[in-house]
């Protein structure tokens, strides 16, 4: 039997009680991430992509909670683990990187102090040994003069440097998977390019799998092996990143790609999606039919029925009654 995937989700469901009934932010999300692979999880605001990340980490803010499905970390189901057991896992076998690294860095402690504490949270080693591991981790993510950076306070580093520190900290215990939630969105393009190149290299060299949560398809195209496109809590299309971007099959993926200006002649009219909210079911919960049919240009009456998961070969599949044809 081959080794289990680094991270696997099976039918994950997360709900938030709201005024008009329960909101199912994550509605049956499944995917597999093998060692050393990068999976891009793409969606617009409200698609549930970040909640998926928080659900994996067991960090969903109450009153929201994971109500179903499994999160398998190297084959072990961690979805129902109590908080103390989760705390032992977090940072050691699965780690998270946020859009704003200042969320996780303490402003009054030196980088070295914080990273050494992160080492010693899971491993009983001396402070010196912890510091030297922190220094090595900084070197691995491409930070120049890492020994000096250990002495710095977070505010003395640039945004890009702080994000590298956050990634280095996540890598300290060589976790099976790192969940990165919009980690380069706040950075300048030249710095984003540097970090994407480093992450690609780190995934290949360390074998850590990355779940890269982003709204930016171009980033996924440059970085990820595979992609899952989320809409209204569901993965509507999945497959190898290059293939999905070259030949999208779900109309939503097609619309996302079509609305990126650089794919068009300058000044040309951009195709735009109709506005609209995903349909709600009778009990206020999610609608069993296709969640995109209220905005879809290809919608037919049968789209109100649950959509089939059509396999297009080579790992690509889409939840759709009327998928896009292959371009001739």
């Amino acid at each position, binding site marked *: 039997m081959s080794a289990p995937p680094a991270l696997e989700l099976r039918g994950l469901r997360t709900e938030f009680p709201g005024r008009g009934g329960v909101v199912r932010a994550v509605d049956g999300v499944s995917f597999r991430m093998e060692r050393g692979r990068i999976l891009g999880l793409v969606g617009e605001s409200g698609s549930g992509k970040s909640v998926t990340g928080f659900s994996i980490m067991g960090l969903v803010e109450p009153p929201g909670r994971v109500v179903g499905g499994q999160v398998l970390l190297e084959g072990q189901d961690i979805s129902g683990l109590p908080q103390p057991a989760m705390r032992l896992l977090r940072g050691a076998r699965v780690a998270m990187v946020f859009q704003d690294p200042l969320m996780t860095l303490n402003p009054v402690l030196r980088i070295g102090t914080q990273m050494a504490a992160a080492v010693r949270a899971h491993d009983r080693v001396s402070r010196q040994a912890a510091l030297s591991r922190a220094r090595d981790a900084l070197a691995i993510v491409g930070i120049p003069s890492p020994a000096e950076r250990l002495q710095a306070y977070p505010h003395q580093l640039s945004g890009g440097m702080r994000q590298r520190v956050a990634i280095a900290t996540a890598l300290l215990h060589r976790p099976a998977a790192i969940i990165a939630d919009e980690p380069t969105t706040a950075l300048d393009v030249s710095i984003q390019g540097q970090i*994407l190149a480093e992450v690609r290299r780190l995934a290949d060299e360390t074998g850590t799998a990355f779940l890269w949560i982003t*709204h930016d398809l171009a980033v996924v*195209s440059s970085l990820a092996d595979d992609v899952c496109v989320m809409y209204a809590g569901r993965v509507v299309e999945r497959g190898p990143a290059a293939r999905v971007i070259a030949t999208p099959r779900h109309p939503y993926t097609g619309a996302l790609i079509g609305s990126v200006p650089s794919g068009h002649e300058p*000044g040309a009219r951009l195709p735009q999606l109709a506005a609209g909210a995903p349909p709600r079911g009778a009990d206020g919960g999610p609608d069993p039919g296709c969640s995109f049919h209220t905005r879809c240009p290809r919608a037919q009456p049968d789209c109100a029925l649950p959509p089939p998961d059509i396999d297009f070969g080579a790992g690509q599949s889409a939840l759709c009654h009327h998928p896009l044809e292959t371009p001739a």
Partner: protein
Amino acid sequence: MTPLLSVEGVSKRFARPATLGDRLAGLLGRTGPRAVQAVTRVDLQVAPGEVLGLVGESGCGKSTLGRIVAGIYEPSEGAVLFQGAPVMSGGRKRTFRVQMIHQDPFASLDPRMRVGDTVAEGPLAHGLVKRAGADAFVADMLARVGLDPALRRRYPHQFSGGQRQRVAIARALALGPELLVLDEPVASLDVSIQAQVLNLFSDLRRELGLTGLFISHDLGVVRHVSDRVAIMYLGRIVELAPMRTLYSTPAHPYTRALLDSVPKLGRGRGAFRPIAGEIPSPLNPPPGCHFHPRCPHAGPRCRVEAPKLIPVLPGQTAACHLHDTGVSDA
């Protein structure tokens, strides 16, 4: 053609208020830099009906320059002329024909004012409409940006991000501007909403013949909307060229590096070459050419002498010694 907007030798310095640490250092006889040079001697002309894209990374001064053009800041040196007259004088903005649209529509609308009142406020204050006609005027403006006029009695928090940005656009249009300063107007919007707002801009441009200064960090968006593009780095314009020339034959190493670091759809995994190094602090920029510490072509001359903008191709200018007499001699 005479330019609609002329930016002439504009510089802007911000004095940083002394912190406790600065004062202590001052007592010990050590003083650090106290002023940020946000914009350094910028010259620009924008012709009527033209859209000039202004691109750069954080700290490059593009937003500051935009705010100077929009009459929010007064330049420390130089002048901003709109139709030959200064936009600001004596600390006050003198025209309402230059309007600005901010990046974050969640912050740029007064949360306690109905959107209809927000749109009507400027025209009423300047006597462009009578109070009796304000309601119809607001309805017309909202319809023009694709919003249901019935929404005018609502408050900003009842709108989505894309709708709020439409309200902000309606507020600017209500004053009948000829020049719009757009500061990252689609950066905080989802891609599908971004497409709608970009389409709205091109419609308005066609219908109203608007002139624009479009500030963005997103080279793809700037390529889509601009006729000409200026690239800024640490307060200086390093390249200025017609859009197609800039994207096909960039002349400045920084422009080339920027174009190379942008992730693109369908370019494939790991196929981009990022620029090395960090963006230096504007508090303490490198001497000579500000880009030299990150530039693969830098020579001794670049460390001491700041290059001037010189013509490269028709309409294209770049501030780089490579296009002058080389980088070696100092």
